[in-house]
Each structure stands twice: as structure tokens, then as C-alpha cells.
């Protein structure tokens, strides 16, 4: 993707926060019979950003995307594109293109006819030369030059995926919608395509809205992530915000991995809450807004925030090393605490060297900086 043609170039200004929203959802709900697939969604999508909907199966991600594309009309609320309510605008009138999970390439057309399909619908008509030129440049972007007259079913999954991408971006849509575009690819290819997708988005500057249930994919690609649950958006933020400041256990669990300890708040001093677990342990973490003494809460401690040592430390918890998993630059330990159960600890290779390597069965002490652990609402 080294060479990007001029007419697809766009200089995205990701620094500016005053970018006008290219699309927005205003209190959008969608009900299918008795299922509320989307529940009062509110969201502004900024020009040029890479936004992801992240959530488990059935949480309404596809429904949200299909309302932007125009395949579903919202039951209530407004879908805005470029400031205009488009609730009842047919899909073929929306300046939006979609990459389908199954690619949905036309089996009776070859690669370049598939890519040129959208261009051929334009009125007034584009000349053959213009269409061929744009198709050629799109093929260049997805690195499929030379595949023009191939049959789409003769291509590999990754190539089909690129044709689907080219078929969408060649139209220079205001919004590119991608519904789990990489789900059908194997792990290695998926990684490659993730990088290509990100490069592509940066270079052509089209606003991307991606649907995925793969947190790694969402974290590595997006400028912003909407975490969804049961038809609702539970939190929206940058990958780092969601990782460092999840507002609920659900988000902390869905974005990255974490250790969770249930308890009730005993005291809050200087923003640090002490909570009592059912077994009487006292644990500390940073208090988050809206939680008061006596509330049932959940303490979230990321595995990499936990320190482990052979010597007892004040406030430390004595554990037994249960399992040691070598992960290259990290080592993951599963340590067993008599009351808390299994705790996940991730130590970087740096510390791992020499006598800081722990063996299975060894007695260790774990602790964490209370400021780096979060007291969250338990749901």
C-alpha cells in the first residue's frame, strides 16, 4: 500500500476535536418483535475516525450498522448522516458503503466488474475510461493489480476480502461500514489484514465503522470503541480509556483481561477505597464515582499491575504458584489464594530474569498499588 493515488487521498486531521460529526445516532432504538436489538443508542461519529462496535454475539452490533447503511429503519430515534436525518432514505441513496462479513461478492461478475459495480450505477454515467481508471487504482490500493478478470470464486479468502474492500472504497463513501470483515480469515491472515485495514484507513481518510466481537481487533485498530451489551452502548472511549478507566466490570472484562474480587466498600480515604471480601480480607483500589460505603462492588486488578515476590510485604497476599506459562516477552503465572481463588499475574521478561523466576508450587506474595486497581460496579 505504498502508493496511494491522489484522488483517494485525504488528509485526516485526527488531532482536531472540532471535527463535525459525519454521522450520528440520536436515541435510536430498534425492536424486532419482542427483542430490543438496539436500545436508545446515542453516538456521534467524527469525520475520518476509526470507530468500532465491540460486544458479544447478539448484542446488537450488526443492527446498529445496518441502520447506518439503511437496511433497517429505526423503530424510534434518528439516524443522521452529514447532519441530515436519513431514517427513511433507501440504502442506495446513502453515501455509505458496507463490507459484508460474507463479502457478498457477485459470483457472476469478475473482479473488476465487482469493484466497478457502484461506479456503474452513477448518474450521469461515468465514462468507461473513468471507471477503469478508478477500478485500477482501487486494485492497486488493495494490491490486487493483475487480478482484473479473475472469477471471484477462484480467489482465496484474503483476496476476496480485499476485493470486497476495494468494491466499497472505490466509491469514496462518507462512511465505510465493516461487519466483522475479518472473522472468516485464519489467525495469521487476520493479523495481516488488520494492519492493512489500519494503513488503508489512515491513507484514504474515509471514516470507518467496524463491528467486531474480537477485543484485540477493536483495541489495535480503533480510535474509539463503543462497548455494547444487550442492545445498549455501555461505554464509549479510546482503547486506552476503556482499558484504564472501565466504568463497569463488564467493560473491564471485555476489554483486556482482569482479576475480579467481589466485596463491599468499608471505607473511602483520599480516593482509595478499602473493601471487605466475603472471607474477611481487606483489599484496596481506586474508588470510582458513584460508589459509597456499604455498596456491593467489584475490585478489578489487571494482571500486569500485580507484583510478585518471595518475601512477605505489608498488605501482601500469600499465594502458591499453580501454573507458569511462558509467553515470550511476558510470563503468565496463575497463583492460588486460599480465599480469592486463582489470580492471574503477568510479569515482563525484564523482571523474570535470574532469581525472580518462580517455580510451580512455590510460596509467593502478591500485592498491587491501590491507585492502579479499580473499584467498579459489579455488573
Amino acid at each position, binding site marked *: 500500500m505504498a502508493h496511494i493515488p491522489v484522488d483517494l487521498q485525504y488528509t485526516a486531521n485526527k488531532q482536531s476535536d472540532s471535527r463535525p460529526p459525519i454521522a450520528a445516532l440520536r436515541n435510536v432504538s430498534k425492536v424486532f418483535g419482542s427483542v430490543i436489538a438496539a436500545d436508545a443508542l446515542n453516538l456521534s461519529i467524527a469525520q475520518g475516525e476509526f470507530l468500532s462496535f465491540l460486544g458479544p454475539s447478539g448484542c446488537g452490533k450488526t443492527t446498529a450498522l445496518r441502520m447506518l*447503511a*439503511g*437496511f433497517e429503519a429505526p423503530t424510534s430515534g434518528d439516524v443522521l448522516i452529514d447532519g441530515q436525518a436519513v431514517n427513511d432514505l*433507501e*440504502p*442506495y*441513496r446513502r453515501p*455509505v*458503503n*458496507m463490507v*459484508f462479513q*460474507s463479502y*457478498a*461478492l*457477485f*459470483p*457472476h461478475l469478475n473482479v473488476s466488474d465487482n469493484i466497478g*459495480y*457502484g461506479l456503474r*450505477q*452513477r448518474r450521469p454515467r461515468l465514462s468507461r475510461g473513468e471507471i477503469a481508471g478508478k477500478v485500477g487504482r482501487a486494485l492497486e490500493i488493495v494490491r490486487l493489480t493483475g487480478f482484473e478478470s479473475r472469477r471471484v*470464486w477462484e480467489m482465496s479468502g484474503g483476496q476476496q476480502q480485499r476485493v470486497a474492500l476495494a*468494491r466499497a472504497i472505490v*466509491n469514496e463513501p462518507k462512511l465505510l461500514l465493516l461487519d466483522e470483515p475479518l472473522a472468516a480469515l485464519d489467525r495469521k491472515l487476520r493479523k495481516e489484514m488488520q494492519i492493512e485495514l489500519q494503513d488503508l484507513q489512515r491513507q484514504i481518510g474515509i471514516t470507518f465503522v467496524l463491528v467486531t466481537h474480537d477485543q484485540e481487533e477493536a483495541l489495535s485498530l480503533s480510535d474509539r470503541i463503543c462497548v455494547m451489551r444487550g442492545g445498549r452502548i455501555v461505554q464509549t472511549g479510546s482503547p486506552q480509556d476503556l482499558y484504564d478507566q472501565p466504568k463497569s466490570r463488564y467493560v473491564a472484562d471485555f476489554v483486556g483481561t482482569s482479576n475480579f474480587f467481589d466485596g463491599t466498600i468499608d471505607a473511602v480515604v483520599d480516593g482509595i477505597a478499602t473493601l471487605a471480601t466475603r472471607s474477611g480480607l481487606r483489599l484496596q483500589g481506586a474508588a470510582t464515582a458513584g460508589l459509597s460505603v456499604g455498596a456491593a462492588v467489584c475490585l478489578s486488578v489487571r494482571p500486569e499491575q500485580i507484583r510478585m515476590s518471595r518475601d512477605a510485604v505489608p498488605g501482601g497476599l500469600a499465594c502458591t504458584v499453580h501454573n507458569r506459562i511462558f509467553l515470550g516477552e511476558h510470563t503468565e503465572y496463575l497463583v492460588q489464594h486460599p480465599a480469592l481463588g486463582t489470580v492471574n499475574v503477568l510479569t515482563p521478561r525484564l523482571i523474570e530474569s535470574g532469581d525472580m523466576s518462580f517455580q510451580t508450587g512455590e510460596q509467593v506474595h502478591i500485592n498491587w498499588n491501590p491507585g492502579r486497581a479499580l473499584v467498579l460496579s459489579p455488573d
Partner: protein
Amino acid sequence: MRIYAVCVYLFLYTPIAIIALFSFNAGRHASQLQGFSVQWYARAFKNPFVMDALETSLFVAFVSATLASILGTLAAVGLQNIRGPARAVFDGVIYIAIMIPGIVIGIATLIALVTVFDVLNPLLASLWFEGGQPPRLSMGIGSLIAAHTMFTMALVIVIVRARLAGMEKVLTEASADLYATPLGTFRQVTLPLIAPAILAGFLLSFTFSFDDFIIAFFVAGSETTLPIYVFSSIRRGVTPEINAIGTMVMVASLLLLIIAQLILRRRPRS
């Protein structure tokens, strides 16, 4: 079990084989073989009555199959968007149309058309301008085409519907997403993808109409199709010429059916 199967096949195909065999008989008698000859085929082709009947049959088959393909395809595509109980009713009606015996369709069409003509003809005559000769609706090639179209349209609907059901809905969505209007989507995506089914439906309809005797017998009026000609000449005795005609009709029909099957078998790759 195997013997039973062999008996069934023998019972089914021996008469057909005999017809084909005797069509090459050099002699005049239908019961004893007297050497090989294709003279009866030549005779059939030179017979003006046979050629007239063949022409009528081909014309009726072509027109009714064309109409059935167009109307059946439109109906199948339209039915796609109907859901729920209404859909079940439509489906039921279509299957019933296929399963009703030809003789019932023949009689029913005859009675219905005669009744309608009885009402319309006086009406036309009274409304027609002074002095002119009012047209008289009667049984004939039109009623024959109509009856065949009606029956074979159900065949086309079933075949095209199966193909539509196998076509991914996401393809029409992708087309709409790429700015094609509903009509554009139909022309550029749906039609090319169901074309093989339409062609197969056309061939089956053609074969059906070309071979049909029962319905034609009731509604053809004074028109003579090939099956009607064969029927009426058999009453004067079976000649090798009839055998030759039968053999040719059979081979042509089989070929069309095989082609239709091959078209339908070819799986769309995706």
C-alpha cells in the same frame, strides 16, 4: 427385490423400445420386422398434415413456454417478499396447480372458457360498431396457449423459487448498498443469477406443451397439434409412420429434459 425392479423397468420401457424398433421397420406391418429402413421418417416429413401439426405444436409450445417463463419468473420474484399465512396459501395453490390431473385442467378450462365466451360474444356483438363484423371468441390456438401457459407457469414458479431461495439475500443488499435501484438490482444481480432456472423452466414448459395431449384435446378447438394428430391417426390403425413420429417426439423431449436437468444441476459457485 432386484427381480422386481427389473420387471418394473421391463414393463415401463419395452413398449417404448418396440415403438422405436418398429419405426425402423422396412415393411408395412406393425407386427413383423422386415429389415431396416428410415423410409417412415422420410414419409412423416413429407406428410403435409404432420408438418402442419408439428408447426402448430412448436408455435404453441414456444409461445406458451415464453409466456410461462416471463409470468412465472415475475410471480416467483414477487412472492419472495410475501411472508406468513399469505405465503402458505400461494405456495399451496401453486403445488395444487401442478398436481391436478391434466384431464381436470382440460375439462375445467374448456367449461370456463365456453362459459366466458357465451357471455362475452353477445356483449361484443352488441357493443360493436354498426355494420362491422364483431369478432367471435372461440376455442383455438389462443385457448390452447392460455391453458398451457397456466399450467406450465406453476412449473416455472417452483423452479425459479428454488433458485431464488438458494440465492443469498446479502447479494441484493450489497447491490442496493452500491447504489443500484431495486430495478437495477433485479436486472444486474437477480436476473443473471436466476437465468439458468428460467431457462430450465422454459425448456420444461416447452416439453410439456409439446407433448401434451389431454389438455390440448379439450381446448384446441379445430387446431391439430402433433399429439392430437397421432391420436386421430391411430384410430385408423398404427403405421410405422406413427412409430417414427413418436420416436422423434420422444427423443426431442428427452433431450430437452436432460438439458434442463443439466442446467439445474450446475451449482452456482460462490
